[in-house]
């Protein structure tokens, strides 16, 4: 509306309708309101998402398994998009290590890959002979190589009891 009035005065060749300070105040207020409304929208979407995930979790108490697309690879974590729920999140391998599921990780920054050594026996038909450089017994671990754009499974654990409600993603050992 401010812009409409400004244009109107301008077309009538009048002197400036608003002072610099007034426009400054107006633009600050517009920004504050707009960002606040966007934040409110995001919070509302998040609330409904976690409520929905919690409902699904009733029949799957350990968490919800879902397909995820890798959107970033770090040295101790990787980023994913879970297309089914529209979730974008970081998955920390530390969490899997704390649970005793993962023995260790190795990062290959040059190739953009992350190797995850799971505490389960390797598959009989492991296609790739993986070099273990962290002193682990290859017969006692299954190695997962995570790279950009890979498709893998993650476990989503929702928590409605926290404020704000949240969810956490965990890595899942490959079959």
């Amino acid at each position, binding site marked *: 509306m401010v812009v409409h009035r*400004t*244009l109107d005065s*301008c077309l009538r060749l009048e002197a*400036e309708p*608003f002072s610099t300070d007034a*426009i*400054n105040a107006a*633009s600050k207020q517009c920004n504050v309101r707009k960002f606040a409304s966007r934040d409110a929208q995001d919070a509302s979407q998040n609330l409904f998402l976690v409520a929905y995930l919690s409902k699904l979790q009733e029949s799957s108490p350990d968490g919800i398994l879902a397909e995820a*697309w890798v959107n970033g690879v770090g040295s101790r974590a990787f980023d994913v998009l879970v297309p089914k729920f529209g979730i974008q999140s970081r998955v920390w391998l530390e969490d899997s290590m704390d649970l005793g599921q993962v023995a260790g990780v190795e990062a290959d920054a040059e*190739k953009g890959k992350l190797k995850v050594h799971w505490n389960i026996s390797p598959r009989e038909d492991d296609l790739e002979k993986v070099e273990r450089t962290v002193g682990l017994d290859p017969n006692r671990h299954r190695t997962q190589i995570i790279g950009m754009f890979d498709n893998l499974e993650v476990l989503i654990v929702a928590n409605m009891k926290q404020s704000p409600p949240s969810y956490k993603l965990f890595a899942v050992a490959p079959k």
Partner: protein
Amino acid sequence: MAVAKKISIAYPESSLLRRHPPPLVKALDEVVEQLAKEGIKLDVSSAGSLQSSLDAIEDPQKQMLSRLLLIKGMKRAEYFCSGSVDISTFSHYALSVPLYTHFT
């Protein structure tokens, strides 16, 4: 756009405009490097060239993921007063225009 031009010429110190600062060069370069490893070449010389190189990614999954990566590095568009801000920062990156405001 036309409105933005008209009012900022008439009232250069007190026009309510909207701008979108370009993404940080460092953040953008990191994404370009990451994607280059996967065989994806992005032309970041302008918003337009960036859009074209994104559209050129054939695999729909890779295209979506690449866009998401870039969005993370973007800044938010904001309203500002023409008299209070350096004129070199007036432009709107995503729309690729030098001057802009909300009118409708």
